[in-house]
């Protein structure tokens, strides 16, 4: 990563942290409903990979912990927050919610709530890109627990068989909901699991954005150069429970304390301070500015946006007036 980018990267990771923390507050205030899966602790994963990729050009698909991935693609954080508030101005017009953030204009192809569901969808997007001769790649971000679904194995086989331009990023936060990986998974090292399909892979520290970037650069270049799929495992940790209904009772405070010492934002902040690129005061000013932006720009927008109207409840189920529903006999419209 270029030194000139690092201050921006720090700001974006801090923004991701504060955005998610503010979502938590809004959830407690009952402004956000449903399920809410937050990203604190894992910021370096999406950030580092998307620094190495081409946001808005490459196609991203993920699971339900998706707010930050959408923002990394270029989605407007105001539209993401408005979606969480269920507003018409939301990224999915209030029809999707936290687990289904889409921004197709920026090639954010959505968050999906069935664990492992995006694997074949990502490979399909890659198939389409290959057919079209595009230089874009498909990037699938999922957690470690998704690798125990059949879709993982089915997709790895097809992705390699057909040499599809797809990068699988496994954000290994050690837990599948509340079950620790060693209690659910026979082979703990996730990057090894794709070797049976002939897919190259790597495992790196997911808490250090510089390390993530370097590994992602190799992975992205591999996929973009036409060499087929790649699997990148990032070792990380989520600070909060799986979702808001999770009290974290299944893991010890010692473990949480240990991981908090490996905070991705603090690691980069201290590195930049040590290099003389920023001061602690710069960082604090950055934080104040972000908090102000979230409160006075993003939350304000979500609060003040209109609700969807009930008259449009059934819109978006099927295409409007598709000409092939009742075509003129013997005459194609397209």
């Amino acid at each position, binding site marked *: 990563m270029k030194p000139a980018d690092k201050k921006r990267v720090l700001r974006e990771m801090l923004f991701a942290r504060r955005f998610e923390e503010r979502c938590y507050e809004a959830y407690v205030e009952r402004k956000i409903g449903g399920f809410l899966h937050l990203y604190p602790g894992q910021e370096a994963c999406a950030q580092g990979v998307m620094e190495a990729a081409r946001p808005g050009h490459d196609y991203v*698909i993920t699971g339900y912990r998706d707010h930050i991935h959408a923002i990394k693609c270029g989605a407007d954080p105001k539209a993401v927050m408005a979606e969480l508030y269920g507003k018409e101005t939301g990224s999915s017009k209030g029809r999707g919610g936290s687990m289904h953030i*889409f921004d197709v204009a920026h090639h954010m192809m*959505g968050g999906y709530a069935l664990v492992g569901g995006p694997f*074949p969808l990502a490979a399909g997007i890659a*198939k389409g890109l290959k057919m*079209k001769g595009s230089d874009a790649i498909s990037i699938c971000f999922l957690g470690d627990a998704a690798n125990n679904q059949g879709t993982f194995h*089915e997709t790895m*086989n097809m992705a390699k068989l057909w040499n599809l331009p797809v990068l699988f990023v496994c954000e290994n936060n050690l837990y599948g909901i509340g079950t620790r990986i060693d209690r659910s998974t026979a082979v703990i090292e996730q990057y090894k699991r794709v070797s049976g399909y002939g897919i190259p892979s790597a495992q790196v520290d997911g808490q250090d954005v510089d390390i993530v970037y370097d590994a992602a650069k190799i992975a992205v270049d591999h996929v973009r150069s036409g060499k087929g799929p790649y699997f990148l495992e990032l070792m990380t940790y989520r600070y909060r429970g799986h979702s808001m209904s999770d009290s974290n009772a299944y893991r010890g405070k010692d473990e949480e304390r240990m991981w908090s010492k490996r905070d991705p934002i603090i690691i980069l902040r201290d590195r930049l301070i040590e290099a003389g690129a920023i001061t602690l005061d710069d960082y604090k000013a950055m934080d104040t500015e972000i908090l102000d932006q979230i409160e006075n720009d993003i939350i304000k927008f979500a609060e003040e946006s209109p609700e969807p109207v009930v008259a449009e409840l059934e819109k978006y189920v099927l295409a409007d007036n598709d000409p092939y529903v*009742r075509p003129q006999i013997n005459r194609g419209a397209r």
Partner: protein
Amino acid sequence: MAIMMYWEALQRAHDEELARDPLVIVMGEDIGVAGGTYKATKGLYDKYGPERIMDTPISENGFTGLGIGASFIGVRPIIELMSVNFAWLAMDQIFNSAAKVRYMSGGQLTAPVVIRSPGGTAHQLGAQHSARMEKVFMGIAGLRVVTPSNARQAYGLLKSAVRCDDPVFIYEHELMYNMKGEVPDGEYFHPLEGSEVARTGRDITLFGYNISVHWCLQAAEILAAQHGIDCEVVDLFSLSPLDRAGIKASVSKTHRALIAEEAEAAVGVGSEVMAIINEECFFELDAAPVRVSAKNVPIPYNHTLEKAAVPSSKDVVHAVLKMFGKS
């Protein structure tokens, strides 16, 4: 008009759409080199090559999901699920991805996939190869379900399904691929919604779809010739959405209704059509509508038991005679 078999009509529709649009692809088990279990994709591999005529591994949920993902960026996959029994394995991707993505993205994404699959009881295929799953698919919001009863519909419905922006499930029948019928010589797009009057009549409407249209037509001949009952036969080629206006129009004319289906009665096409009749034209009825449906059993292997489990034209005749007090 050309006379061709149902499978030939499907093959022609595939071929025309593949030739027109380089983003049309075909995926499925044994559809390429092997030419397709029911020959619907015969010769296409040699003509269009492995990138577009994709023999898939036996991974139904995986390759169906892959086709759905490709459709997100403009590819038009025609996915063949070799048997509808295997569609259960792909249900997650059909139900959770294809059918819901337009809605949960607020209209940003759509999954214009076509999923074709044959079902029905054929010849002693046993419980796990004799499913009739149309009732499951027709209950899914965001998915169109059509089912051709003849070669013309098989051709025209597939043509329209490929070009429609919605995901379309086409339910075919294992016993119908060699059935001959007339197909227009020129390009023909069958509507994806509506119903067709396959035979006009005054005394009762027999509703059928797919293979049961033929039971109804055979029964109508017998009832006219031997019992003086003039049946109208309505072909419900669109199971989702069902043609409320067409159902209402016919029942309002004949004042009686029977629904013939190869599947079990519970939560099925018959129960749904009856509900529509209740909602749309209850006071037009001269008699309570009846269903002719399969027994509620896994389909047995034994030939005699298998025949006893599913209805036939004879059962339609008996049910009509009973309704008219003639049996």
